[in-house]
């Protein structure tokens, strides 16, 4: 994480105060974290109006549920990012079918070109990813791509199969083997 321990402690405090209904703490939490959540939401949803909506939903949820945060759920930032990502996945499930994947599935969606530039160049090469970045190196190319596409694009197995032009069974095993290998490495 690019956040220092001091930043993290501050966020824990802000989250605790937000849980008690402190609007000022909530505003500071928003100030500190919203740009990270918004970056992820834009990356996943591709549309500003959807990202705006999702960000608002997330923070409203955080305002209502901040008291359910516990340190074992990760650092405040990773917890907030998780809330945001699940929200984005829900939105994609509701909204993407009609706009993103064509009926016939003949052509790869536009997002494919974008991701095939290799999202790992943009994300994994940055500092702060530490172990995750190192462990991703252990994965075979197809495993790595399927995990990253699932993470950043929110693709289902079926969507991955369409985008990666591979049979469904093959794609499923790429994802599973990739995750299994990642877990072995992350545990070390």
């Amino acid at each position, binding site marked *: 994480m690019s956040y220092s321990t001091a930043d993290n402690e501050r966020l824990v405090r802000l989250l605790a105060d937000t849980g008690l209904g402190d609007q000022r703490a909530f505003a500071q939490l928003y100030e500190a974290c919203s740009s990270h959540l918004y970056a992820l939401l834009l990356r996943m949803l591709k549309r500003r109006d959807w990202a705006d909506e999702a960000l608002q939903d997330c923070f409203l949820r955080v305002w209502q549920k901040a008291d359910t945060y516990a340190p074992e*759920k*990760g650092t405040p*930032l990773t917890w907030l990012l998780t809330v945001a*990502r699940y929200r984005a996945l829900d939105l994609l499930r509701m909204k993407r079918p009609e706009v993103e994947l064509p009926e016939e599935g003949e052509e790869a969606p536009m997002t494919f070109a974008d991701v095939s530039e290799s999202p790992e160049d943009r994300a994994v090469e940055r500092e702060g*990813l530490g172990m*995750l970045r190192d462990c991703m190196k252990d994965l075979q190319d197809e495993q790595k791509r399927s995990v990253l596409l*699932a993470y950043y694009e929110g693709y289902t197995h079926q969507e991955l199969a369409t985008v990666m032009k591979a049979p469904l069974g093959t794609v499923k095993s790429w994802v599973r083997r990739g*995750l299994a290998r990642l*877990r072995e490495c992350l545990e070390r």
Partner: protein
Amino acid sequence: MKYENPKLRQMLAAEYALGTLRGRARRRFERLARGETAVRSEIRFWESRLAGFAVGLEPQSPPPSVWFSLQHAIEASRPMVTPIRRPVAPPPVVTKAEPPPASAWRILAGLATAAGVVLAVLIGTRVPLPGEHGPAPAVATAPTPAPALALPPIYVSLLKLPDSDMQWTLALRPAADEITAVASGAYPKLGAHSLELWLITDAGPVSLGLLPTAGEGRLKLPANVAGAQLTLAVSLEPVGGSPTGQPTGPVLTSGPAIKAV
């Protein structure tokens, strides 16, 4: 599905966090996780590790409208009283401690006094306190009203509309409750709408009225303002302004108003 198999549970937790576990299988696994600590901690393991992919992204600032809407939603659920009207003129002579005013106003007033003192120190000017008369002018002319000598604060701001040459030069005079807005540039065709100016306060956006799209206009300044800098924003609203008293349309531009005097 046989959830007793630990390898399988690990895999399902990973696919749950990644999002590739969908539909009924996802809901079934969610139910399982509710009852089993080990499953929950496996999910959390993945959630916090995978979040590393998001931390690597370049941060992106969300538009101010998201924060406006959030504040609006929060205040709707939890009313907060913050007086924004200026109080009636301060008493001419303060002899005894006044009954404490509403706390929000006290804070604002405190800030205003502090800002005045800081400003006085910075520019070496004595700022008269409320009820005090300014120093007599060295050259006797016609009696000048105290506010002119006291240099009441003026905030200035330049707000530009992105993707156009449209801009507004604004002067806010809290002492006169007045804002002068001078529009310049070509107003882009945004349909039948009004442009509403907002002051962003701790208690949320406060409407300052509608901006002119050409020439000069005068707006009321209904709020107490203090500090070295204010934040203004312009939103696109239905003709005549927001029907709710809160921004309802997209925020087109925002920026600071700097204390100039």
